[in-house]
């Protein structure tokens, strides 16, 4: 590891966001009675998704769909390709059953809005600017991988009596109308329609507090992940390695794609982060309903307990360093 990267990681480790995540892990491990009630969790996610969406929508209105189109299409493609190559790795190297491999692949092709938020916070702290319309990449990457994963899982199970197109349509419903996609896309649309002028009023509520709310949310995520630390022993060494190696590969791929699209260092970093991140909310919900035979311990542990912390601690600075070298 080189000097710059080490510094970047160090700066990240002492950021409040990461420290709150660690505090959450501690709360879970030490079995403190600190607990976020479910409605608070829901309120925080609504706030974060709407804030991310609005910001991106306004940026789209300002940049014009023309400039946003190419990188958004590229992001969508990334989300489609990743599960297709992750599947055989899981199936043949990891020796997972077809349905488990498909389920895990879906999670890695999809994305984590909180990781994205943490990455924008990281860039802000460094004073590195980025295309604010990157929220659009986030929005289009959430669903495709889930659909691909469900298709893979169903095709593999062909012959059994469990093939039902109804489960594909269930997946489609969940992937498109699920809480997080719906809110993100909706807020993006509202931002794009009402533009900067419209944001003058609602803006203050969704900008200044954003970073603090994200920090609190990471405290909660630390607790959620911490309570599942024990599952690490159940998933085997392969998946632990997968959860850290794949993000790096996907991150590099994303950075390459971002650079190819002509994004700035910041935007390229975000494309890398999105590719590297794994979904632990939208994907699990959709997969649970559409591929009920897949074992949730595998995909949840990989996405939430391994990849999420890896990305917010080490991944983000790493993809940023990659972007800096490539774009400059």
């Amino acid at each position: 590891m080189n000097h710059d990267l080490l510094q970047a990681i160090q700066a990240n480790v002492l950021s409040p966001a990461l420290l709150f995540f660690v505090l959450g892990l501690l709360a879970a491990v030490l079995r403190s009675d600190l607990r976020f009630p479910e409605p608070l969790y829901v309120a925080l996610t609504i706030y974060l998704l709407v804030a991310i969406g609005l910001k991106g929508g306004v940026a789209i209105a300002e940049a014009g769909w023309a400039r946003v189109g190419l990188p958004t299409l590229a992001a969508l493609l990334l989300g489609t390709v990743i599960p297709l190559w992750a599947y055989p790795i899981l199936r043949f190297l990891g020796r997972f059953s077809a349905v488990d491999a498909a389920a895990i692949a879906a999670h890695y092709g999809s994305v984590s809005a909180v990781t994205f938020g943490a990455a924008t916070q990281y860039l802000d702290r460094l004073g590195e600017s980025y295309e604010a319309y990157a929220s659009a990449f986030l929005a289009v990457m959430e669903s495709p991988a889930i659909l691909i994963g469900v298709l893979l899982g169903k095709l593999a199970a062909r012959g059994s009596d469990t093939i039902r197109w109804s489960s594909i349509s269930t997946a489609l419903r969940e992937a498109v109308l699920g809480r997080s996609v719906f809110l993100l896309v909706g807020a993006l649309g509202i931002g794009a329609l009402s533009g900067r002028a419209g944001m003058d009023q609602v803006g203050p509520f969704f900008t200044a507090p954003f970073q603090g709310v994200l920090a609190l949310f990471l405290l909660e995520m630390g607790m959620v992940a911490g309570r599942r630390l024990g599952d690490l022993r159940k998933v085997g060494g392969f998946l632990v390695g997968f959860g850290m190696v794949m993000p790096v590969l996907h991150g590099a791929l994303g950075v390459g794609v971002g650079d190819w699209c002509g994004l700035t260092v910041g935007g390229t970093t975000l494309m890398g982060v999105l590719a590297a991140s794994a979904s632990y909310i939208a994907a699990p919900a959709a997969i649970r309903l559409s591929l009920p035979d897949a074992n949730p311990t595998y995909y949840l542990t990989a996405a939430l307990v391994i990849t999420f912390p890896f990305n917010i601690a080490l991944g983000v600075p790493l993809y940023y360093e990659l972007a800096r070298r490539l774009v400059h």
Partner: protein
Amino acid sequence: MTIHPMQLVTIIGESLAREPILKLLREVGAHGWTFFEVSGSGRQGERTGEIPEYSNIQVEVIVPPAVAENLLNRLQHDFFPRFAMVAYLCEIRVLRAHKF
């Protein structure tokens, strides 16, 4: 005051099963139901009720015996293999039999 025997079916399971359960209740002909947000633990691990997607619900349905049997049959066949779930039956008495 006449009190009529009736059966109470209670279903506890992961909250992602909410919509499929609702569909089932309509199909077997239940005329009402009540939902609780709960947390719990069972053979398929702990559900701490912190994140809606990882959480638990309980449904209580008052139904005549024939509907109860049909409902339990469907649960056993279609739901138990797919969802973390528990269901049980309890004898109760109600005031207005025609409601159920």
